[in-house]
């Protein structure tokens, strides 16, 4: 698949923002353990909102006909993309309601809006994963690991951002402790990513299945076009094996191992967050670049 930068940025940025939102709301529930003043909470919420909004705006950049994007909310019964769009937009009125309830001191309303926000944020992450996970045409994506990966990586990058936000507290509160949730989620993320690399389905369909000649060898004689087509631009992208291997190591180190070490041994939470996001961007680039669509079989590839 063609790794479209707008979509890569969208999934990582919104993912981190949604994860931060979830952990910020949970932290606000745990006042006994995590001391967070209102200003820090609002600063964190602003960072989460900025990440989510930047991602959502970026996601519209790859649309060829943006003026019809409003219709994208109409097919929630069948389309994961429509579900994702609607639930993502639902975050804004819910957040406004929550803020209003916090400001006007409505203790009956805040828990409702808070848990609705958390559920909605996780649902958006799940829908984003299912957009890719539901495609039978791309065997590498069509696995339960894809949505789980999106949810986990979103919560993980948000959990790394939370101690960074907490470090913005006024100095009299004292330093931030070891963010064990972030470290645990980074470890889980690493395990899931390695499992995905080892276990994801690969090479299920052959050119013989594509054309129905099940015996003998089938090979492409002529593809019928002299230069690139929409299909070759969109699905013909290939990444060199050496480059992919290098990027995979970068993703493993930057998204998981380095942030884990920084969170455990240091207080450089902003740097840890930045490195984690860069690692996730590389991981997401690979997710798209290495995905092979079955239409490649008709363009002469022997297996997908």
């Amino acid at each position: 698949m063609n790794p479209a930068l707008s979509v890569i940025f969208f999934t990582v940025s919104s993912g981190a923002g949604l994860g931060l939102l979830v952990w910020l709301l949970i932290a606000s529930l745990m006042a006994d353990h995590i001391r967070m003043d209102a200003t820090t909470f609002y600063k964190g919420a602003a960072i989460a909102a900025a990440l989510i909004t930047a991602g959502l705006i970026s996601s519209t950049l790859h649309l060829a006909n943006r003026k019809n994007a409003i219709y994208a909310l109409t097919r929630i019964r069948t389309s994961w993309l429509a579900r994702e769009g609607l639930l993502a937009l639902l975050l804004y009125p819910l957040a406004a309601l929550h803020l209003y309830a916090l400001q006007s001191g409505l203790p009956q309303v805040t828990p409702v809006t808070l848990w609705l926000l958390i559920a909605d944020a996780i649902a958006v992450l799940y829908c984003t994963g299912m957009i890719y996970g539901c495609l039978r045409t791309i065997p590498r994506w069509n696995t339960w690991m894809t949505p789980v990966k999106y949810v986990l990586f979103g919560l993980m990058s948000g959990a790394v951002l939370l101690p960074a936000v907490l470090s913005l507290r006024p100095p009299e509160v004292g330093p931030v402790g070891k963010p064990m949730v972030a470290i645990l989620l980074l470890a889980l993320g690493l395990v899931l990513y390695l499992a995905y690399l080892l276990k994801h389905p690969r090479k299920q369909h052959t050119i013989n299945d594509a054309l129905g000649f099940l015996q003998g060898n089938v090979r492409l004689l002529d593809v019928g076009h002299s230069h690139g087509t929409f299909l070759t631009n969109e699905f013909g992208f290939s990444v060199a094996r050496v480059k992919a291997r290098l990027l995979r190591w970068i993703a493993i180190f930057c998204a998981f191992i380095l942030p884990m070490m920084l969170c455990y041994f240091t207080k450089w939470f902003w740097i840890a967050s930045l490195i984690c996001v860069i690692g996730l961007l590389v991981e997401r680039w690979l997710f798209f670049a290495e995905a092979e669509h079955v239409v490649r079989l008709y363009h002469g590839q022997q297996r997908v």
Partner: protein
Amino acid sequence: MKLGLAIDLDTCVGCHACAVACKEWNGQSLMGGAPDYDAWGKAPSGTWYNRIRHYELEGDPTYSPHRCGSHADTAGHEPLSKTINVPMSCMHCEEAHCVTVCPTGASYKRAEDGIVLVDPSRCMGCNYCAWACPYGARELDQDAGVMKKCTLCVDRIYDEQLAEADRQPACVLACPTHARHFGDYDDPQSKVSLLAASRGTQSMLDDLGYKPTNAYLSPRKPVEVKTELPLRQGLSDKAKAFVNRLIQL
């Protein structure tokens, strides 16, 4: 109704006339618009609803030239069995996943005849339906920013201004070898149903579960040629065997 095409992989010669006729009709039609990009430049490209690809088949005993008397070469390589030309357009699948993934409702499958269409006034050009199509049937119109695909010439087949014989998709009318047939697969007596039943069809990525409507008629098997004389020889048997021996030399 379940309208669709039957494409004969035996008689298709891969001349691309169907694709040209498609482009000619749909380039200007109400539903269509199939622009070219850099058409006279160094890297010409364009939006096509129908593309023809060519394949070689090797070592398939069903279509082996051994049946006609040719042999493997000294290195033991099987001779090339067959060249197959495969025109591919929208299959108008029964389980059209391109329609279910569409977030805007621009992609739809008509209940009355099963034709899968795109409403350009709703499409936002997100390419998601093209991702969901295993057959590469959908291509983005980069000028209008909306997805385009085979309409089964919906603006021809119901046009009562046309003579009845012309109420067929442009590709079917253009095919010089009559390799393309159009009809209703719901009617077991229709031409396409009878052809599909009698000739057998190729299964193309059936395990994905899209249930394509279009059928690709399997190539006919080569007639096996016998060089030995039958026990009871007539004059015609002798003549045939003589000719076959000549050919084999």
